[in-house]
Every structure is written in C-alpha cells, then in structure tokens.
C-alpha cells in the first residue's frame, strides 16, 4: 500500500485533474507519522533526482523541523547533495514564523548558522495568502512557467492550524492541489491536537488518507496518557490504514503493518500473529481463564433448559433427578419420563395430557400434606 502511495505521488496528476493529495495522520499513541512523512519525502526526492517522477522539483514547507534536519535526512537517504540543492526548495517557517527576529536586535559576537541557497525564510505564517504565493513562487523559480510541475510537502499542518483557522488552511491546501503546476501534495497532521472535524475536513481535501495507529488499541487501563510501558510496546510497530478515494467516487480501505528499524520505516502486509496479541493481555494467574478447543466443542453441545432445540422434536428438559439411560450419549439430554412440552400440532389434536413432577423422591403421590407446613411461619 505504501508502495502504491509512492507511485501515486511519483506519477502525479492527470491532465484536467487536481493533483493527488495525501494526508498522513498520527497521534501520541503512535507517534510514527513524522517517520512516515520522511519516508515519502525521501522517496519522492529520490525520484525527482532520478528524473522518474512527473514533478521536476519539490517545495518543502518546514514548520516543525529545521531545514538543516531535512537536508541531513535527504543526504542520509542517499539523495545526492547537489541534486538536493538543485531540485529541492525549503520554505523555512520554523526559525522565525512570526517575524520576531527582525524586530529585536541581532546577536553580537555570536556566530550565526550559515544559510543555504535553497532555503528561504518565511516570517508570517498567519498570512495564508502570502504563504500560498511564496510556495508557488519558489516552485516556479526552479521549474519555470509552462507545463513543468513541482511537488509540495507540508511537514506539519497542526502548526499552521495554531496560527490560522481551519477554513484558511483547507483553502490553502485546496488552492495548491488545484494549481496547474502542482504535481502532488502531501502533509502531516497530529490528529490528537485537534477536534475530529479537522481531520474530517482535511480528508475531504485529500485523495488518500494514511493513518498510523497502534497495533494494540487503548484499553480503559491504558487510558492514562502516561502508560509508558504500553507506549513502549507500541513504539516500533504500528498499523498503517489507508483510505483511497477513487475518481469514480469509490472509497477503498486498506491496511498494512509498519515497523521502525535503524534505517527508517518498513511496510509489510498484515500478519495474523497480531490477532493473538490481545489474547496475551490476559492476566497471568494460576488458574486457566481460557477454554481449550475440546471445551469449546463441549460447550457448544450443551442443551440449554427451556430453550427450543429447533430440531422438530419435542423439547425435553433434564430435571437432574433421574439417572441417565444407557442409550443417551449426551448427559444433558432429558429423560422421556420427565416433563415434556407438546408441539403445536400435538396440542391441537385434542388429546390433553397432564404430567406431574414430584418435588422430591420422598414425596408420596396424592399426598394431602402441605410441603410448607413445617415452616412455622
């Protein structure tokens, strides 16, 4: 599934269609969304560098991590540094998003970090229109006008939503998606920082929503934010749910597994072993809380009293006082000499019957003795 997403980003958009848009969402329960974002970013950057993608460049809007982080990331992932400088532009909304640094005196006697040519500062994240035009200008700056397209990545929409409203952010993403020069666009959001309607609104703007969720779902016991042992167990593995919106309107939901290793994220088909994970959450006690297979079969064979067995025969109820006949294989089946219920057909035949069940074996038939006489009430 992740491969198909990478291909979709690589292939870009068809003529007359809006660009494919990918939402990656995660939460603190499974904070692997940034790694998934890095994975798709590095893949797309490699494809751009190789010339195999529709996009001829990439504009990265960095709100959550510094531009130097991404440059190091792409270098570690094997993208040639010269090609990064040539085909990747980073709009730095991380270092000075509110234009504070321009209004305070600069540091003296302190060596400032060197700026790179492919990094542009953006100092007013509250102005969405200016952000949109900056992204488009950066992209056009290195792919030019005309038919050439470029890709856009936004590293954390959650940070944008802190500065501006949801309609503004949704409008920005929609405007980017519908621009003729955008090949594809993808972004990351932390779903637990917002109301559910935010994720829903962004899902409507997207063609693909990829959700990173924990392998083991939260139980009431783990509801505390600080169940660290539970978090540790979930840290390296996750479920990767993908909701694809086809052009014809059909929505497909697919799932993969995701795990982290030294290199980065790896995706794999869903395995059955995780279905046993929750079973292992039973408390470790000295008695067996589970049923064996034989016990399950036996339980299924139990004939419950006062329940229609549904096999066309008269309902028979075991009263527990008669010994079993040798012919009866199932000990729970009723003896024919005890109480029996007539079927409807027999009841309407006109042959009434009265069956009397003694309360105990000691009771004599036709006794006038009131069994409650000895209560001394």
């Amino acid at each position, binding site marked *: 599934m992740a491969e198909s997403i990478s291909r979709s980003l690589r292939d870009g958009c068809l003529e007359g269609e809006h660009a494919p848009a990918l939402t990656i969402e995660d939460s603190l329960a499974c904070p692997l969304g940034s*790694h998934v974002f890095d994975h798709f970013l590095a893949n797309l950057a490699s494809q751009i560098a190789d010339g195999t993608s529709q996009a001829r460049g990439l504009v990265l809007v960095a709100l959550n991590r510094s531009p130097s982080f991404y440059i190091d990331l792409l270098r570690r992932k094997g993208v040639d540094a010269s090609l990064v400088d040539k085909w990747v532009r980073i709009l730095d909304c991380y270092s000075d998003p509110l*234009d504070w640094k321009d209004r305070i005196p600069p540091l003296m006697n302190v060596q400032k970090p060197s700026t790179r040519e492919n990094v542009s500062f953006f100092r007013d994240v509250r102005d969405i229109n200016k952000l949109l035009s900056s992204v488009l200008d950066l992209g056009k700056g290195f792919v030019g006008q005309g038919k050439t397209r470029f890709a856009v990545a936004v590293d954390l929409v959650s940070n944008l939503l802190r500065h501006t409203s949801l309609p503004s952010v949704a409008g920005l993403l929609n405007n980017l998606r519908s621009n003729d020069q955008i090949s594809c666009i993808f972004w990351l959001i932390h779903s637990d920082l917002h109301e559910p309607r935010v994720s829903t609104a962004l899902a409507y703007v997207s063609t693909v929503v990829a959700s990173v969720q924990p392998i083991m779902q939260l139980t009431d016991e783990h509801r505390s934010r600080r169940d660290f042992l539970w978090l540790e167990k979930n840290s390296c593995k996750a479920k990767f749910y993908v909701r694809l919106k086809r052009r014809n309107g059909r929505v497909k939901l697919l799932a993969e597994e995701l795990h982290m290793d030294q290199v980065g994220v790896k995706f794999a088909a869903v395995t059955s072993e995780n279905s046993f994970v929750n079973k292992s959450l039973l408390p470790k006690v000295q008695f067996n809380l589970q049923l064996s297979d034989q016990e399950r079969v036996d339980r299924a064979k139990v004939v419950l009293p006062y329940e229609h067995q549904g096999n066309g025969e008269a309902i028979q109820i075991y009263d527990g006082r008669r010994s079993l006949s040798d012919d009866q294989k199932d000990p729970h089946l009723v003896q024919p000499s005890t109480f029996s219920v007539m079927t409807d057909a027999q009841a309407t035949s006109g042959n009434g019957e009265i069956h009397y069940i003694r309360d105990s074996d000691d009771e004599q038939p036709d006794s006038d003795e009131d069994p409650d006489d000895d209560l001394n009430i």
Partner: protein
Amino acid sequence: MNPSPPPPRDPDLLEEALGLGRGGSPPWRLAFVEDCVETSGAFVLHHFLKRALSTEGDGTVVFLGLAQPFSHYDRVLRKMGCNLSVQRNKNKLHFIDLLNLEFLGERRLSNEKGENDIEIGFMDLYNRILRSIEAIRSKDYNGGWTTIIIDDLSHLEIAAHGSAKHVLDFLQYCRSLTSEMDCSLVILNHEDIHSSDEALQMLSHLDYISDILIKAETLSTGIAADVHGQMTVIIKDAPGGLIKKLHSFQFKVKENGVEFFYPGSRF
C-alpha cells in the same frame, strides 16, 4: 603546594539517565519536568542548576524565575554548596526576574499584523533571553554549554491570560534557539492543572516538542519517610518521537541535595 582539585564525582542516576555523564553537553535539547501537588519537581531544577554551575564543567545558565525570587534559589543552592550570587557575578548565571508577571501586556486586541500585547510581551521575553546568551558569550566565554531553565510553565500561561497559543509560540522560538545557539531548555510543568480537554491538548503539544520527559510523582504505596517519590525519565529518539529508553527510580530530597536510588536498594 597547591592542593589537588577534588576528583570529579560519579554521575547520579538522574544524570546517567539523561546521558549527562561527567560534564559536557547533554544529548538532548528540550526537557520537561512534570510534577504534581503531592510531589514538587522543583528539586530537579535545583539539581540542574547546581550541575550546570558546578566547577567541573564550564556550563552557564539563563534562569527565568516566575515562581520564586532569586533569594529563594540562592538560599536553597547555598545549602547544596553552590553560591548563586557569586555565579551571577562571574557571568555564569543570568537570572531573569519575572515574579510580578507584568512583563506581558494587558491589551488583548490585535494590531494590523495580528499581534497583541501578550505576543509582544513574549517577544520581549525572547529578546531578554537572547541578550543574556549574548552577554554570557561576549567575554571570557570558553565554549561551555548553556542551559535555559524556566520555572515554571503554568506561570507563563497565567501571564498569557490562559492563551496556550502564545505560550506554544514562545516555546517554538526557544526550541529553535536550542539548535541555533547550542543550548538546552529545561521547563517545569505542573501536570495536574491540565485536567480539562483543552488543557490535555496543551500537554499533547508539549509531548510533541520535547525529547526528554522527567516525571516526579508520589509512590503508589503512599507517603514514606525514607523515600519521597518516584522518578520516571523517558528518552525519545526525536521530539515527540518513539520512546528509546525508560528509566525509573526513587528519590529522597535532603537539605543539601537529592538522593536517587533503585527501589529496595536503601536500608
């Protein structure tokens, strides 16, 4: 004959958990210290303060004091063997007194740029931190690590009239400062005041930007004379990222310091 300098002491459990070792720079940038009403985490800040200003290293500190006056910390650290007044005179400690919380303005209406007095106040506070770092590194600076300590986040929220957005914006700038200026940030936060849904989101925001969480809490078995609480240190591989390591041990706060030990190792 000059006496030889005392041998460097072994790192305690907290320092080992934080990868601080014997002096040197920490391998992290932003640490949150969480405490609650039953167990104050102030001793952790005192511990960081003393360690950063110790003679073993060349560390410096910028301390934002919102909860207590300078004299309080001076008194506490003296009992721990550290004279803050001397350190301040030696340009190793810059104490920014914010006790009256008047550093942020009252006007909440925004100007044409979308700013209000609260944002301008935080911008000024950020400027004061920069000036302190500039002063620290202007003369006789020998490359030591700078630690910015904020005591505490809840007072910042009070000063911001409950505006989590402005506090988070300020923290964003402090966070970017840690990578630009090679310094680290330690912030005390009272977890139990964030009980509403909106406040829980604030805690989530903090979780996403921190790479270390130090949690001081009471023992699950209750109050004890020899053990004052339990400490959990969570090391993440990246801000808001995967948990890389988890350390848990107990502590006892004394007049001249704090002892950290594993459960059952004290008699």
